[in-house]
């Protein structure tokens, strides 16, 4: 390459450099407004779409994190709601019990069922009150619906209650309306029967059965159940009377042990 060509090439390079340096200096000396305008225009057509995309990704990530947090909070609130519902029901029950307690004339020791059928051979429940609370053997036990059973074992902090649905449990009872006496005992499962009622006795469906006070265990006038079916037997001199107990032996929670004295039983 000749010297002139080389010089010409160098001049071309310097011309290129000069033009771009000139524009660079122009940008440098522009006033602030002009710089901002050019920057904003270039940003709008270059970085802006990517910044928006990046912001969307960040938003999605935030949404994901918030979603996880809200799901956790949701589970916590559901559990709390269930707990509050349960407490609300318990509150209603306890109010009713308080009402019920004020209506009965006997001294009662309130307790809760803590275990069901600890001994599989009998229908019984374990309650949360015992000797330390004043519970004694053979005391009757009721709930707000009616008679439930009697105390058969007493421990310091707990007591075993034999339910009316236990085959061994007997209650001297009478029909409230006609004053016909009989014995309430377990029939089948949790059903009860009123036995020893003569065939001609005045018994009707719907009659209320209460304790008669005879027998020396249960005081009189404790609600037991209602007559659901009555029929005369062809082979026996007694009626077959089926009794629906007021207390639901499958849903026992709060129970009351009645502190009955001998004199109260003899009344």
């Amino acid at each position, binding site marked *: 390459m000749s010297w002139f060509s080389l010089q010409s090439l160098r001049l071309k390079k310097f011309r290129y450099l000069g033009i*771009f340096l000139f524009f660079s200096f122009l940008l440098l000396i*522009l006033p602030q407004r002009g710089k901002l305008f050019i*920057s904003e225009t*270039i940003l709008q057509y270059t*970085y802006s779409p*990517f910044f928006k995309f990046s912001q969307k990704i960040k938003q999605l990530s935030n949404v994901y994190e918030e979603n996880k947090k809200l799901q956790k909070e949701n589970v916590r609130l559901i559990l709390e709601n269930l707990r509050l519902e349960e407490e609300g029901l318990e509150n209603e029950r306890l109010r009713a019990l308080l009402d019920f307690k004020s209506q009965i004339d006997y001294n009662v020791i309130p307790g809760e069922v803590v275990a069901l059928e600890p001994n599989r051979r009998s229908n019984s429940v374990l309650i949360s009150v015992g000797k330390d609370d004043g519970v004694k053997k053979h005391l009757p036990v009721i709930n707000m619906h009616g008679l439930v059973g009697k105390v058969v074992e007493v421990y310091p902090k707990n007591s075993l209650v034999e339910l009316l649905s236990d085959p061994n449990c007997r209650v001297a009872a009478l029909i409230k309306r006609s004053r016909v006496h009989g014995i309430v005992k377990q029939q089948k499962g949790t059903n009860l029967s009123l036995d020893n009622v003569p065939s001609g006795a005045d018994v009707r469906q719907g009659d209320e059965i209460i304790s008669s006070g005879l027998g020396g265990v249960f005081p009189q006038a404790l609600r037991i159940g209602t007559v659901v079916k009555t029929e005369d037997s062809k082979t026996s001199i007694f009626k077959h009377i089926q009794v629906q107990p007021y207390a639901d032996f499958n849903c026992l929670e709060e129970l009351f042990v009645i502190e009955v004295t001998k004199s109260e039983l003899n009344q």
Partner: protein
Amino acid sequence: MFWNNISYLKIIRGALILFVVVIFLSFFSEPLRVANVKLDLPLFLVVYVGLTRGTKEGIGIGFLIGLLVDVLNPSFLGLNTLIKTILGYLAGNFKDNLFLEPIHFKGLVIFLALIFNDLIYYLIRSGFDLPATLGIIFFTSILSGIYTSGVGMLVFFINQRFKLRIAFENGASKPE
């Protein structure tokens, strides 16, 4: 005259490089920092284009990349444009220079380019406060230069291997 000399391929190549700079500055600038040491990919690209394509393309790409970096800090619009234009020209002068055949010399050029860039940039930004500028150079620019030149050497190495492979596939004989 000026526009007639620019081929479409150069425009596409230039646009691709600018696109890479925009993507890098939008998404990868922060994640690719190592212990607060940044990777100066825009500067590396200016030096790369200058070394491989010559002064004209080096100047042009230096101007444009400098402008893209400047718009993110409008107060000093034109400063990076100026510095990178000069760097593009200087790097372009070393194109086909046998002295720069080894990759580590290319790495050295990238390192020196970064030091030069940061020196001029921070000197002007700080109002010619030399001690403050030198502090920045010693504590950040040197590490950034090492990082950027390391990445740069890797790119040159891959580029060299790729070109050799294409040459052999096209019938060139392997060096003995």
